[in-house]
């Protein structure tokens, strides 16, 4: 246990790659859900219709203030009782995406609030239809300034992705724990730790690059 063995690492590799694929899949699809659903929440929270606005605010507050772990258990064990049952991976992706969508909603909201009132006034003065104003004037400016903040949540989601292992979707950390328990070794955990850095650090650099490019 206390000396490093490359042969153990080699033995772990096939399962490691299986785990990497699950991690990246969860991250990519989770991000997609978080980014689109978050925008939907942000717009619904501004709705002038009370019965859209109030439930959405309540729901997003609730999801944001309860643990992801609980939500994953709920989605996997409770929802199928009276709803669709999904595979462990699908549940994990939906859970991550939904949880983080309530954070990205706040990010979008800040971005939308940050667009100067003069932009709305100019759109009114030009008689642009409301939907067109959102699509062509407000959202492009709002999203541009929140790209770095959204990027931070991608990295945060990567770091939370091992949680989906609790419902049986073995990401790279889940594979490493299983492998280590079966073989009484620890190399796999180190490999995965390094792998997280190798994914997260370039992602941070990309965010910083986008920040310089997009936000002045």
């Amino acid at each position, binding site marked *: 246990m206390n000396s490093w063995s490359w042969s153990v690492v080699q033995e772990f590799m096939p399962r490691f790659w299986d785990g990497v694929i699950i991690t990246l899949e969860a991250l990519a699809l989770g991000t997609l859900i978080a980014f689109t659903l978050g925008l939907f929440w942000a717009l619904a929270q501004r709705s002038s219709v009370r019965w859209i606005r109030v439930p959405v605010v309540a729901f997003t507050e609730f999801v944001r203030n309860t643990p992801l772990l609980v939500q994953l258990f709920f989605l996997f064990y409770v929802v199928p009782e009276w709803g669709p049952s999904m595979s462990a991976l699908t549940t994990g992706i939906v859970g991550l995406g939904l949880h983080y969508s309530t954070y990205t909603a706040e990010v979008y909201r800040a971005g939308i609030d940050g667009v*100067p009132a*003069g*932009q709305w*006034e100019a759109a009114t*003065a*030009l*008689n642009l*239809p409301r939907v067109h104003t959102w699509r*062509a004037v407000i959202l492009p400016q709002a999203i541009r300034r929140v790209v770095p903040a959204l990027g931070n949540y991608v990295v945060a989601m990567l770091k939370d992705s091992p949680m989906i292992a609790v419902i049986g979707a073995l990401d790279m950390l889940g594979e490493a724990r299983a492998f280590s328990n079966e073989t009484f070794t620890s190399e796999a955990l180190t490999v995965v730790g390094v792998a997280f850095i190798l994914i997260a650090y370039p992602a941070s650099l990309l965010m910083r690059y986008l920040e310089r490019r997009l936000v002045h």
Partner: protein
Amino acid sequence: MSTDQNPSVPGSKDGTELIRFDRVTKRFGSNTVLDNLDFTVAPGKHVTLIGPSGSGKTTILRLLMTLIRPDEGTIRVDGDCLTHEDKGGVLHPAGEKHIREVRKKIGMVFQQFNLFPNMKVLRNITEAPVHVLGMSKDEAEERARELLELVGLTEHIDKYPTQLSGGQQQRVAIARALAMRPQVLLLDEVTSALDPELVAGVLDVLRDIAHSTDITMLCVTHEMNFARDISDDVLMFDQGKVIESGSPEKIFNDPENERTREFLSAIL
């Protein structure tokens, strides 16, 4: 919103008035910015609103642009009511659809330009003609080029607003407003945010437009020389009321009202 106005207030299709404020009151909280204001503007006239800050000049432009709504009274543009719509002889507060229709007659240039920073100069100008007037893209671009020539910025057509000086941005904003072919152009302190050396270029463009088109202009400005040069009428505001009006010669050279004299001596 009051509906006690006489619905048979004469429209202005007879050509004597393009803008008509009837007993318009606007409050912000407990502060009454406009107080039972009446005034009219004839088509093609260039009217300058002057007065101390807080006297309600900008509020008039914002009411006309429908950025805000009056608390009482009616506003008509070219005979159509901006504030109310007639439903079976009874006036109701105007709905969005009605407002959009009347608003087509009005354009506005803002103190802070308010160009769309995510669009190049050309698209800033063509966006509304294409998406509001239903103009073809080619036609809108053709027209945008003409307008950019008018404001002297042809070579900047492919730049983003942030790549331009304040004066250039404001000239683009003027072109953008004109692209909608409004009957009324509202100018809200359009040179106040500019560095002094950039003011002249913008005023020259507006002077050209004032002298070469029959567009009606309503202008809030602190540039008294410009006001003197382009205005047919000057309205002096104080505390939400017109306290004096007349030709620029009369107002600037021989004001009757004491407050007007004080105001002019303070700024000239």
